[in-house]
Every structure is written in C-alpha cells, then in structure tokens.
C-alpha cells in the first residue's frame, strides 16, 4: 500500500507550465460581453519562438498582457518560467517581470528620458548595479542594435525604426530569458522592418532568448521563422534556418478568440483552412 501511494505521487503529472518558458492552459478572457480569448492553450519551450498571428482585435496583444500580469484571465492558468502568474499579487508579479522583456507597439519609450536612460531604466531604477556598470551595459546593447551614437538623443528625435530598436534594447538590457514583441514592425517600411526582424533573430539565436512575436505582418513572421543568426568570427550573419531551427519556430493563428492553427511555417503554408488561406493571400 505504502509503495503504491509513493508510486502514485511520483507518477502525478506536473503542471503544464513548470518546465516551459511560457504556458497557457485553457485560458479564457472577456471584456463585458466581448469574448477575447476562449480556451487558449499553448506552450513556449525555452529558446524557441512562438509567432502569434491574427487579424486586428483578435486578442494577440491581450496574450502578451496576460503573460506580463497586466491583465488577469477569467479562467485557465498562465505560467511563466515555472511560476503561475494569474493568481499572483502585483508585488509577486514584479519578480516574474524580471524574467520578461516587452517590446510594446510604437515602442512606448519614456518621453522625458534620453535613449540611454530609457534603455538602462530598469537597471538604474530597479537594481543595485553600480552606475558605471549600467552605463557600460547600456552602451553594449545600443551597439548591439546599431544605435551607439544615439545615447543622448530624446525619443522624439528618433525615427520609427530607431524607436523600435531602442525599445528592443530596453527590453533586452537586463538580460531577461524571454522577450515579448507586440507588433514590433507594424508601420515600418520593409527595409527598417527587416532590421528589426534581424534583431529578433539575433537575440533568439545568439543570446538564447525565448520569444513570442505578435504580428499581423506575414512577411516579418516568416522572416523570423525561416532565418537564423550565426556568428562567423567577429561578424554576425543572418542565413536561412536549418530544419531543426525552423521546427523551433511555431505559429499560432487566432480566430474569434480561439486557436485556429498551431504548427510550423511549412504546416501553415500547406494549410487548406479557408480563413488561413485568405489571411495568407
């Protein structure tokens, strides 16, 4: 009997999100009468990419806000780095947010702070790191996104693409293991959008950052899913992803609050679902 009960304890399944970077387990959310998410479940493994597609208002950005704990679901469980966040208090959430970097739509840079202050905000304000170390880290990440000469500029002096890259630098500055991108390329010209996509790919492949990319720009979604970054000496090159890397990037298509599709880029292209065909065309 004793042995049996111990055996049962060992075999008891662990919660779905305990080993994942992010996991949604049957999450639902409605604002008044409008249902935004219905029974949404997915798992993002560490180092992988999840690309969330869907029409405007389909609940894509809401998923990111649920992950950050900025919203709470009506039902289901949200897990981040092994911690269940949907039941946490705001104080507890602050610790979980140390594991998450977020690139907001339009950047959401702080107007009254310089680029350097924006990028180093979390380290300046919420850590005990010496100021010279913070300054060094800020210079390092700005060099990474190609904006070393913009340290003392104000956000209003930057172009749209530069603002997004500063937002990426701010999100990665404190080295979170997971980055969330909310329409990071929307409204940018194709060339600038590609530079932002390359930053996403570089962070994922060279810094081992897990990523959730919310977008309705198919071109950018497929770029992130089908490319990888490799270091050749001191140079970083963006090349076509090999088969294993392509498998690590999964698409989720949201439709009317439901997950209408989940799979890799090849599966998405091969789908015969009329909604997906319309979306892709």
């Amino acid at each position, binding site marked *: 009997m004793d042995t049996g009960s111990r055996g049962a304890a060992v075999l008891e399944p662990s919660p779905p999100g305990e080993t994942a970077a992010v996991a949604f387990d049957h999450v639902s959310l409605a604002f008044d009468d409008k249902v935004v998410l219905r029974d949404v479940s997915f798992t993002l493994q560490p180092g992988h990419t999840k690309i969330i597609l869907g029409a405007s208002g389909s609940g894509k950005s809401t998923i990111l806000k649920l992950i950050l704990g900025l919203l709470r679901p009506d039902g289901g469980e949200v897990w981040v780095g092994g911690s269940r966040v949907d039941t946490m208090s705001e104080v507890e959430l602050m610790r979980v*947010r140390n594991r998450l970097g*977020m690139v*907001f739509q339009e950047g*959401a840079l*702080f107007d009254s702070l310089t680029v350097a202050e924006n990028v180093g905000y*979390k380290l300046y*304000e919420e850590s005990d790191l010496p100021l010279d170390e913070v300054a060094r880290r800020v210079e390092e990440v700005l060099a990474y996104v190609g904006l070393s000469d913009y340290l003392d500029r104000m956000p209003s002096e930057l172009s749209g693409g530069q603002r997004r890259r500063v937002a990426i630098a701010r999100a990665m500055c404190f080295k979170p293991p997971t980055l969330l991108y909310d329409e990071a390329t929307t409204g940018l010209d194709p060339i600038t959008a590609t530079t932002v996509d390359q930053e996403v790919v570089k962070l994922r492949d060279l810094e081992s950052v897990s990523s959730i990319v919310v977008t309705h720009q198919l071109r950018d979604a497929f770029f992130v899913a089908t490319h990888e970054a490799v270091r050749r000496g001191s140079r970083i090159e963006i090349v076509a992803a090999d088969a294993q890397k392509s498998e690590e990037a999964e698409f989720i298509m949201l439709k009317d609050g439901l997950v209408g599709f989940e799979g890799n880029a090849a599966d998405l292209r091969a789908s015969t679902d009329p909604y997906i065909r319309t979306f892709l065309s």
Partner: protein
Amino acid sequence: MTRVLTWFEEWIKAAVLEVQEYMRLQGATLRGMVSRPFYFHDVVEQFDLIGIGSLTVVLLTGFFTGAVLALQTGATLDQFGARPFVGRLVSASMIRELGPALTGLMLAGRIGSGIAAELGSMVVTDQINALRALGTDPVRKLVVPRVLAGIVMTPVLTVVADAVGIVGGWLISVYQLRVASSLYWSSVMDVLYIGDVWMGIIKPFILGYAIVTIGCHVGLRTTGGTQGVGRATTNAVVAASVAVIAVDFFVTRLLLTLLY
C-alpha cells in the same frame, strides 16, 4: 422609462466605480509613502515642478487679490470712518480664506491639468504598462512624489500668496487710501490669532492633497487616445476646482469648531 432606468443604473455604477478606484489609489499612495521602494529624485523633481514652477502664478494672484481687496474694502470702510482698519480686513481675508482658496484654484488649473495630461498621455501611449513591465509600480514612481510635493508645497505657496497679498494691500492702503504705513501693519498684526494661522496652514495641506490625487486619478484612468487626454485634462481641472471650493467649505466649518 426602461431606457432611463438603465441609463441611471449605468451612471450610478460608473460613479461608484470612480469612487472605488479613487479610494484604491489613495490607499496605494499611502502605502507607497511608508514603504520601499522610494523614488527620491522624482520627489525632488516634483517639489521643483509643483513648488517653484507655480511661484509666479501664485505671486501674481496673491498680490493683485490683496491689492483689490484693499481697494474695494477701503471705500466701504470709509462709510463707517474705519479706513485705518483696512489692514485687518486684508490680512484676515487673505490668511483665513482667500490665500488658501485662490492658491488652491490656481494650482488646480496649473498642476491638476498638468498631472492629468502627463499621466493620461503615458497611459494612452502604453508608457504606464511599460513601467509595470519593467518592474516599477506606477503609483510609487508617479503618484507618491506628486502627492508629497502637493501636500508640502501648497501650504508654502499659500503662505507666499498671503504675504504678497498683504504687501499688495499695503501698497494700495499707503499710496491710494492714504493710510499710514505703521497703522496698516499694526492693524494687520492686531487681528491675527493663532487659530487663523493654523487655518491658513491646515486648509492648503488638505487642498494640495485633493488637487494632486484628483489629477493623478483622472490621468491614470484616461481612455480614448489623444482625445481622451484632452477630456481627462478638462475633467481634472473641473473636478479639482470644485473640490477646492467644497473641501474649503467643509474644512473651514470643521476648523471653526475645533480652533475657535
């Protein structure tokens, strides 16, 4: 009839929600004042913006209020042969009522609108969410420094307004009403009781708190893009101005019972 009832029910719900959120903000603010983290440089910045930044408008308002008070009351006092007592009237009116109320109204216009517009823009451009995502509590970072600056600087600005108002009254009394300077100043001091001074300090303390918390509450509840920011700014000024007058009445009523 049913539509009217539904509308009324919605209105009541919205009003109760506003009150609930306002009370929650005050609770979070008070907690933020007595526990870490504490953003000291933001507090200093707000003391400068709210205190030093409002000095010009308060100086001008106080000066001209004192001057016009002397002008108006001088003529009335003449009818009773009491012109030499103009200083009493100016100092009592300024310190007990006009100083706190007018400073409050000026600050409601200047600070209430500024705070609502600033926080409202931060809400609609996702900067508040960005703060939370970066691990910062917006109440501690944005509201607590403003409230501290409001409750400390409003009494200071009121004392400044009282002083320049009395000086404005002195200029009119001496150069227009031809009252002796020494008579004016002795008349100013004669009428002042310690209760008046307390009233002149306690009222602006409460008014400053009301103005800033209303500005922060309205700003943080902004919705609807840039149009919403405009609406929030107007609402903050209107609500804070009405609050200044209403709070002034109730606090005066209370202090008259307690101090006199």
